[in-house]
């Protein structure tokens, strides 16, 4: 049997590993340098091209365009959510005809470009002026803003219907059965048991859809609506100044990033009971 008779004397710490220069590090620094260069170029473009007159002239127009974009998107998302309800239920129903019609609607609007839908509604339906005048709908299809809104609503309703359907069907069957076993009427079970669970699942896709809508809303500028993109194009066509586009990029990035963070916060808050 041996016993330790003396302690090991203290030793210096082992030499720290040499920091190697890896290929990844070089690439990272190169790319970051490129980003920094672009950022400097952006700032320089704005600073060098700064003109008080231009700012005073186009600044308020940009803000107005921003307001147009936001109001258009908010209206489209809300109306689209309303329209998506019957579509989603038709999609889930056992009725063959309803199911097929809803499926066709969703399929068509999800697989054609928003721009083509907008053109079809604004230019296409706009060419039926006499008929529309007799029906009394010409005031609606005459305005590019209304046509943009209509195409956005139809488009986002198709996407939102799929989101809603997926979310409702993701709620386990046992939840329905449990509610039925407790004798809860179907409508109340849906409203108080199924929907809350479904909306948590749907939150992230809904957020993505809103962001896609904000980005997609830029297409109305092509049919002469002065949203943020439209004002940008107007300013560019007057000044041929590249920084008009940079300002638009800053605005869009700010909106999308702010929205993304708000949605992430909302999701973390609403799902806090699911965290372990």
């Amino acid at each position, binding site marked *: 049997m041996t016993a330790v008779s003396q302690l090991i004397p203290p030793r210096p710490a082992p030499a720290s590993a040499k920091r190697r220069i890896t290929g*990844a590090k070089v690439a990272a620094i190169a790319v970051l340098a490129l980003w920094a260069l672009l950022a400097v170029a952006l700032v320089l473009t704005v600073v060098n091209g700064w003109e008080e007159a231009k700012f005073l002239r186009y600044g308020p127009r940009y803000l107005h365009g921003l307001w147009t974009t936001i109001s258009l998107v908010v209206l489209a998302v809300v109306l689209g959510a309303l329209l998506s309800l019957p579509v989603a239920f038709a999609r889930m129903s056992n009725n063959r005809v309803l199911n097929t019609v809803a499926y066709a609607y969703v399929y068509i609007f999800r*697989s054609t470009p928003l721009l083509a839908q907008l053109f079809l509604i604004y230019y296409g339906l706009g*060419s039926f002026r006499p008929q529309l005048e007799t029906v009394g709908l010409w005031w609606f299809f005459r305005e590019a803003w209304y046509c943009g809104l209509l195409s956005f609503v139809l488009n986002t309703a198709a996407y939102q219907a799929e989101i809603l359907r997926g979310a409702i069907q993701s709620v386990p069957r046992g939840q329905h059965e449990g509610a039925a076993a407790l004798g809860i009427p179907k409508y109340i079970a849906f409203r108080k048991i199924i929907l809350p669970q479904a909306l948590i699942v749907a939150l992230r896709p809904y957020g993505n859809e809103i962001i896609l809508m904000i980005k997609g809303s*830029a297409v109305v500028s092509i049919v002469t609506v002065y949203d943020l993109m439209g004002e940008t194009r107007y300013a560019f066509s007057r000044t041929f100044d590249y920084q008009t586009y940079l300002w638009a990029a800053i605005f869009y990035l700010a909106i999308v990033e702010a929205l993304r963070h708000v949605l992430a916060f909302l999701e973390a808050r609403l799902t806090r009971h699911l965290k372990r």
Partner: protein
Amino acid sequence: MSGFFSALFSALDPLCGPIGLFSLFGALVDNGSLIACGDAGWGDEIAFGVKITIGLAIVTLPVGLVIGFLIALAAQSEEKLLRLAAGIYTTIFRGLPELLTLFIIYYGLQILIQAVFAWFGYEERIEINAFFAGVVALSVVFSSYASEVLLSAFRAIPHGQYEAGDALGLHRGRTMRLVILPQLVRIALPGLTNLWLILLKDTSYASAIGLAEILRQTGIAARVSKEAFFFYFIACMLYLTLATISSVGLGFLESWAKRSEVRR
């Protein structure tokens, strides 16, 4: 031989060939002369637009996939700075509207090339090709979304797979090519299918910078013939057909990629 093949292709042309949709439609239907092929109708112009749309999407796909793959690699690297660089890229290009990206790249490249040429003392107005600008802009957008899909696919592959590669004495590149990539493709394919369908739709934005793709060609036809609804309806149907064909094709590809998995 090449003459034979070109004859075969023109005979099997699905839009303007002898049994093409536009030719049949133009011959059979009363109003159909609008999209007849040749001088009378707009069929051949629109068929050209379809080719440009498909070409744009097909050229963009590999470029976007390669850039997206590199960015996904960067985003999961151990090097913090590289992750930061990749994060900046995806944040910017996923936050900008595709239309704005297209304009920024179209005009930005022109300014850049002009500046470089002016540096060498060559002062002239340069206009870059709309197709090229479209490919650059769409692959930038595509790659930033593809990197997210590929990144989540990378995360789905267990770390043991890399270690097994090391244990077999495979070089890092070979581990990636022989062990990781085949699994990565299988996991990422549904996401990439979605991105391809989005890419097909995004090609329509290139009409805004004057590229003669489906929407621009039908737009010209609509303006000249004053049959806007008819032509834009045709444009929508063409996009719908392209999407349907590619989703069927990609469905086959997916089941092919999954052939080694257990059937349930």
